[in-house]
């Protein structure tokens, strides 16, 4: 039980007064970011990242990860009160959440959502506490070929699991890798793909891409839809909370199932959204109340919310243990680690014990604080949505510009950020997924390094990716993920044919 001892040490770090203050600030900022259109977890954290450069890394990660929890909670507010999913994984929450709010049970719906989120996150954090050190320990034995196979699995899952057309996912991802390749080649020290432009020497920073693609792109889409918010008013008082909690006890099975589905899906990149839908679908089939789903039944909120939060939390597992983020937001946190001078990956558990366990402890406390904050301050946060968009849009534009500038103190970056914004708007409108592009920009150099080092070791033979049981298994999993839609349709065909044969 060395983990528990380390965890308690982590709690001691987090419970210092200034860290608790940062935690509160992070949660409040996070909920605001989650509620505002145009700001999500990923770009919100990217914009605030420069403010943390001067902080000690542990305090910085506490604040930033709390922004993430806050943003996750915030998504449920817009989904239930305004029928606008703040994030894609809140879509399933609107199915039952908004009808409940319309029936005058907004307080119950919100309490259900927040509590479910909390349970999902809690289960995932417990899982991280015990699995992350194991995986990190295991990964210490990884060579470049194994690391490349994990990257391969990561990106193959995007192609197979994402709803977007595979060709578009591949194009978007490869553009990300290509952007990461621009500039100085880390192995040979040669310049490439700069075509003589000195401003391209350092390549493209993914933080700039995140702020542009998600921040500006989101504003443009919101502008096009001419957002007119018409929300339901909500009040939460202790009586409502207490009664809802009593009722929620009955749905413990759905909550547990949702959390497990979420944990499982969240480890794979882009898993939160399919996880929330899957949990909703499974609960609808298994629950005795299944027929009432969609008309405003609390169990229809419990299922997707537990799964989405469990997934959002467990997306941090591969980031902490392997240095491979499972979502764009985790990627931004990883970018933060690099800037604070920490090397993400399995060695962190050995070399940066205090930091890692501080982070894990802050996940526990952050979610408790988050639950209290959202339950008490809902009307305040809902009021933010009533600010006209013509006020919010220019303010967010300014914040994005400041965020982009402060990454490298470069005005050129601000221009690049705007261009990313326009490109992001067009790509999103045409169903190109943006998360794989962002992750590819972050991981591009490392994936390439692993690829080339493996080939160097094998003198150019691709057989190295099948050279031992571990690397072959991961590669095979990657191939299955890559061709998953194809395999699924083949299986379905085979099943119908088998049935016809009878």
């Amino acid at each position, binding site marked *: 039980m060395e983990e528990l001892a380390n965890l308690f040490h982590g709690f001691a770090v987090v419970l210092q007064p200034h860290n608790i203050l940062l935690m509160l600030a992070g949660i409040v900022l996070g909920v605001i970011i989650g509620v505002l259109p145009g700001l999500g977890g990923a770009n919100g954290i990217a914009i605030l990242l420069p403010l943390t450069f001067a902080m000690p890394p542990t305090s910085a990660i506490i604040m930033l990860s709390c922004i993430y929890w806050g943003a996750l909670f915030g998504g449920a507010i817009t989904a239930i009160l305004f029928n606008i999913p703040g994030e894609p994984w809140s879509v399933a929450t609107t199915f039952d959440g908004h009808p409940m709010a319309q029936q005058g049970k907004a307080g119950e719906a919100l309490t259900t959502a927040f509590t479910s989120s909390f349970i999902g996150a809690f289960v995932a954090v417990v899982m991280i506490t015990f699995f992350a050190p194991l995986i990190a320990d295991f990964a210490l034995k990884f060579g470049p070929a194994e690391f490349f196979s994990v990257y391969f699995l990561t990106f193959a899952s995007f192609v197979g699991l994402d709803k977007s057309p595979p060709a*578009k996912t591949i194009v978007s991802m*490869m553009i990300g890798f290509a952007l990461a390749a621009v500039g100085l080649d880390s192995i040979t020290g*040669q310049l490439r793909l700069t075509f003589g432009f000195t401003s391209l020497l350092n390549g493209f920073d993914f933080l700039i891409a995140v702020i542009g693609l998600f921040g500006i792109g989101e504003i443009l889409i919101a502008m096009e839809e001419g957002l007119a918010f018409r929300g339901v008013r909500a009040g939460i008082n202790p009586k409502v909370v207490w009664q809802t909690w009593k009722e929620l006890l009955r749905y413990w099975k759905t909550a547990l199932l949702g959390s497990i589905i979420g944990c499982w899906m969240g480890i794979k990149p882009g898993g939160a959204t399919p996880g929330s839908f899957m949990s909703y679908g499974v609960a609808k089939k298994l629950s005795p109340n299944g027929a009432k789903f969609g008309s405003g039944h609390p169990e229809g909120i419990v299922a997707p919310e537990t799964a989405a939060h469990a997934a959002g939390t467990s997306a941090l597992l591969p980031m902490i243990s392997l240095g491979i983020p499972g979502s764009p937001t985790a990627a931004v946190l990883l970018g933060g680690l690099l800037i604070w001078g920490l090397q993400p990956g399995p060695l962190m558990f050995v070399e940066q014990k205090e930091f890692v366990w501080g982070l894990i402890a802050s996940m526990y406390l952050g979610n408790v604080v988050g639950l209290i904050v959202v339950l008490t301050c809902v009307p305040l946060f809902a009021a933010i949505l009533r600010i006209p968009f*013509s006020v919010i849009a220019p303010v967010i534009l300014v914040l994005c510009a400041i965020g982009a*500038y402060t990454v490298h103190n470069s005005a050129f970056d601000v221009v690049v950020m705007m261009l990313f*914004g326009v490109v992001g708007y067009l790509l999103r409108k045409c169903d190109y997924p943006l998360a794989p592009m962002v992750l590819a920009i972050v991981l591009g150099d490392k994936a390439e390094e692993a690829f080339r080092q493996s080939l160097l070791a094998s003198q150019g033979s691709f057989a190295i990716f099948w050279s031992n049981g571990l690397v072959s298994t991961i590669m095979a999993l990657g191939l299955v993920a890559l061709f998953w839609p194809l395999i699924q349709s083949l299986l379905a065909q085979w099943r119908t044919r088998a049935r016809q044969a009878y």
Partner: protein
Amino acid sequence: MSEHAHSGGGGGPRHRTVELAIASATMLFGLIVIYGSIQAGITWGVEGPRAGFFPFYLGLLIVGGSLVTIAQVLLASDRDRLFAEWGQLRLVLAVIIPALVYVAIIPWLGIYVASALLILVFMIWIGRNPLWWSLTIGLGLPLVTFVVFERLFLIPLPKGPLERMLGF
């Protein structure tokens, strides 16, 4: 989001046209990557794979994926779907154009003055907000930013003639 049903009259560019334009653009990007990789060397050198080795294949995949997308769009049946209505695009351009002007004037005016101008222009002309409200946000936000960044966190942001005049 693109499944959003747009009712009402008003024409606009076809979705298909935009799809084809984007796929052509990504293909061009892929070709540029391939060209740049060949320049950097895609063969096996003394030090192992040379700098263009990895990007070369990325370029090939981008071109391949773009071709598949183009073929899919050409074969698709929903030819009349609109990308967006002109009225909607006008709103989008109403953000893009001021924003582009904004990023262009930051190096000359500094970020504080430029931000104030952007917010004022946007809130008064596009949002038609009351003047006092626009002035509060337009002047207040840059001031708050100034205090937070330059004073609290000691992060210098770009400054222009106005700040120099005031002695910062």
